[in-house]
């Protein structure tokens, strides 16, 4: 009986692998394309060790997700995803990668035991989420919803406090307000956060030179006696040359 079930299912699947072009639903084809790109690149982000490659795969994954947003009829959100996420946030992230990509930090390995535990927990979480996701009503009936009007106008009007969209069928909220208050809050939040980020990441004027510059500024000693004299001859403002690069980085 199990064999029969598997046989029936596999033939139904195999029959759909090579369908005639006319019955192909292009919405589904593009959905599968973007979904495979998004999930595959997200997996590649997890599996890659090199941080530069991780950033590249993340760009691909987020771009494919923008394609999914377009397919779901949320073209404004998809455009924002492309412009803010892929165009802004990831450029910021890539700059961070470039600023910190010294040779020992480009690829920091994780131990195999940690990877195994993380994979186990991730698999458990994925199982839970998949069960929840697959319990949702599966299919849209073909033709039940016609082409809808673009959502950018209602969304833009709602962001300034005016709702011009019709409430979904059966929704109790009729006289709903827009999103003016969240919009203002998030605007001020963004301003505060960006000012704070610029303050945090500013180039600091150091009272003492950085350890690397100190090392570079000291002439190579010619003799043992001069080498021994370097520490004593250091000016009062600057500390003696330290053996560790970790010291002396404070503001």
């Amino acid at each position: 009986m199990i064999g029969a079930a598997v046989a029936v299912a596999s033939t139904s699947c195999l029959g759909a692998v090579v369908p005639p072009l006319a019955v192909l639903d292009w919405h589904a084809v593009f959905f599968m394309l973007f979904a495979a790109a998004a999930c595959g690149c997200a997996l590649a982000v997890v599996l890659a060790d090199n941080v530069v490659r991780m950033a590249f795969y993340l760009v691909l994954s987020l771009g494919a997700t923008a394609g999914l947003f377009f397919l779901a009829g949320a073209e404004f959100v998809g455009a924002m995803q492309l412009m803010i996420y892929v165009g802004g946030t990831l450029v910021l992230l890539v700059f961070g990668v470039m600023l910190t990509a010294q040779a020992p930090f480009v690829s920091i390995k994780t131990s195999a035991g940690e990877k195994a535990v993380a994979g186990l927990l991730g698999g458990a979480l994925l199982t839970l989420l998949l069960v929840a996701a697959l319990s949702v009503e599966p299919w849209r009936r073909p033709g039940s919803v016609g082409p809808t009007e673009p959502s950018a106008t209602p969304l833009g009007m709602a962001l300034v406090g005016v709702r011009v969209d019709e409430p979904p069928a059966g929704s109790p909220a009729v006289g709903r307000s827009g999103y003016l208050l969240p919009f203002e809050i998030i605007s001020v939040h963004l301003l505060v956060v960006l000012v704070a980020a610029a303050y945090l990441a500013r180039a600091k004027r150091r009272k003492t030179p950085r350890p690397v510059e100190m090392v570079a500024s000291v002439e190579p000693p010619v003799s043992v006696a001069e080498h021994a004299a370097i520490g004593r001859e250091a000016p009062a403002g600057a500390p003696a040359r330290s053996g560790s690069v970790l010291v002396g980085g404070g503001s």
Partner: protein
Amino acid sequence: MTAMIAPVAWVCPVFGLGPLGHPPGVSHYLVVGAILFVCGVVCMATKRNALGVLMGIELVLNGANVNFVAFASPWLQADGARSIGLDGQAIAVFVIVLAAAEAAVALAITLNFYNNHATVDVDRADDLKG
């Protein structure tokens, strides 16, 4: 018999074998969102590079966004199911903006840490360890 076929018929569309003749439903988007979310969580847990942890956070937020957009979409609902309408798209836009703000601050903190400690390994950030 049908009870045994049903799970297999469920799995086949998810892995892309069967559904090319049907439009995708909201559960397909939820599956994509779940995979992105789990990838982000695992990335946050295993990466030792601070920027890798940041990328995991971006993936998690993106997975949540996929769910919001799917529930808000007028295209994906079965008959009788309720879409949350414009709310989902508005929340998705807010999440994108918040992710941008979070990335800016986290990157500033990471650069500061790198300036002070000459490393981006999060395992080395143990100054507060007792």
